[in-house]
């Protein structure tokens, strides 16, 4: 009796139409049906933040979102951040520059969360960055460098240097 639903949404500006089992999460739709594997499945229960994407510009957990719920909405994943010529987003560049990862598995979620965190204006202090990035767990413990990368990218974006 599982419903199959036609779900239409934009991923990184590209219109997609997918026929999905009603149980399909946005995370599985992105990875297994749209074949964009940058978004990671960590805990799959809303605790680690590895699956963070933007829906209509706001960061959400794709593992706790049904694909059907984003019908008609705009989804942005880590693949949608860089410019078409390959120029990295300021947050991506800062993560590379400040070595803000070790194994890298949490990194797409960290970066998607950081881009939103900066846009929200929650980067006024290192404490604010830690508070508003707390939904993204890094088991390697790269937090000090992540905070540096977010702080630096925020400053550069605010100064309009990138």
């Amino acid at each position: 009796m599982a419903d199959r639903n036609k779900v239409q949404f934009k991923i990184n500006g590209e219109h997609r139409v997918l026929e999905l089992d009603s149980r399909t999460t946005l995370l599985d739709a992105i990875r297994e049906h749209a074949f964009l594997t940058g978004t990671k499945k960590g805990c799959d229960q809303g605790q680690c933040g590895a699956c963070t994407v933007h829906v209509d510009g706001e960061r959400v957990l794709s593992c706790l979102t049904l694909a059907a719920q984003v019908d008609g909405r705009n989804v942005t994943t880590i693949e949608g951040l860089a410019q078409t010529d390959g120029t990295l987003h300021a947050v991506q560049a800062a993560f590379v520059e400040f070595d803000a990862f070790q194994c890298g598995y949490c990194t797409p979620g960290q970066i998607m969360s950081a881009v939103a965190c900066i846009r929200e204006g929650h980067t006024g202090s290192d404490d604010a960055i830690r508070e508003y990035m707390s939904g993204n767990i890094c088991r390697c413990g790269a937090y000090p460098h992540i905070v540096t990368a977010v702080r630096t990218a925020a400053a550069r974006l605010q100064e309009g240097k990138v």
Partner: protein
Amino acid sequence: MRAFDYVRSSDINTALQQSGLPETRFLAGGTTLLDLMKSGVERPARLVDISHLQGLNDITVVSDHIHIGASAKMSHVAAHAQIQSQAPVLSEALWRAASAQIRNMASIGGNLLQRTRCTYFRDPAAYPECNKRNPGSGCAALNGINRNHAVLGGSDACIAVYPGDLAVALVAFDATVFIRGATDRQVAVDDFYRLPSNRPDIENDLSVGEMIVGVEVPVVPALKNSHYLKVRDRASYEFAAASAAVGLEFEDDGHTIKDVRIALGGVGTKPWRARQVEHALIGKPFTEKVLRDAARYAVDGAQAREHNGFKIVLAPRVIARALMTVGGLV
């Protein structure tokens, strides 16, 4: 996950009709429901998606009350300028809850209905016994690892703690839940939540075919001078070990307590209004000793299990610290 039918509602009346079928759940933010469906605690046959409903996400702040639509997102309410200035306890209870991502997803109505974090409740494969999931089956927490379980309001059937933060602030300030169903009705948030008694599966006053459409908080002077203190095992993205929503109004002398509001989170089976402490403080001078002496009443009748006795020590301290913060003593 059990297969389910998915329907989306464009208006409230249709959604209410659609929700009348058996084994049906409303889906809003999904942060609790989808999580519980993955773990097998919730096994609905049908989801009615109400996240697209129009007109339920308004936030209205006027001179005598604050109204928050049930579909408003936690993050939007927390960041609302008038909520921050007129009712800081609401904003603080919201931004200290969950994570930024979850707050962008979770609705206010769903937040009120979030389920307990009791690890036994949430793991049906390992623990078939749970009176909340399966009435009469027993409770694994009573003699299990119960460090995070309730010391207030529990019963021999259930000691699962109410996990939320916002409802604690709402209870402290006499907020009302607006419910739509066959008839429209309103119920005090304090009465909305039930004690587990011998039926922990019945957690609140909401019936099948009813939907929360908003909450309303009366504006009193203490609301502007309010605070939510949340003490927990890590600094962020964690449930409360003990929390307190407080508000304070002084007499014209600036020192005598005219009105005080106190509710506790993280220690009770429901958001826990500390009325005895409030009564003990009204008319008293605002000193640390007065606060600490009165705060002890908050845990009158508290019952510790093997691992959670620390909450009985902690809760009065959290109340005192929260009041000292709003009253300028720290």
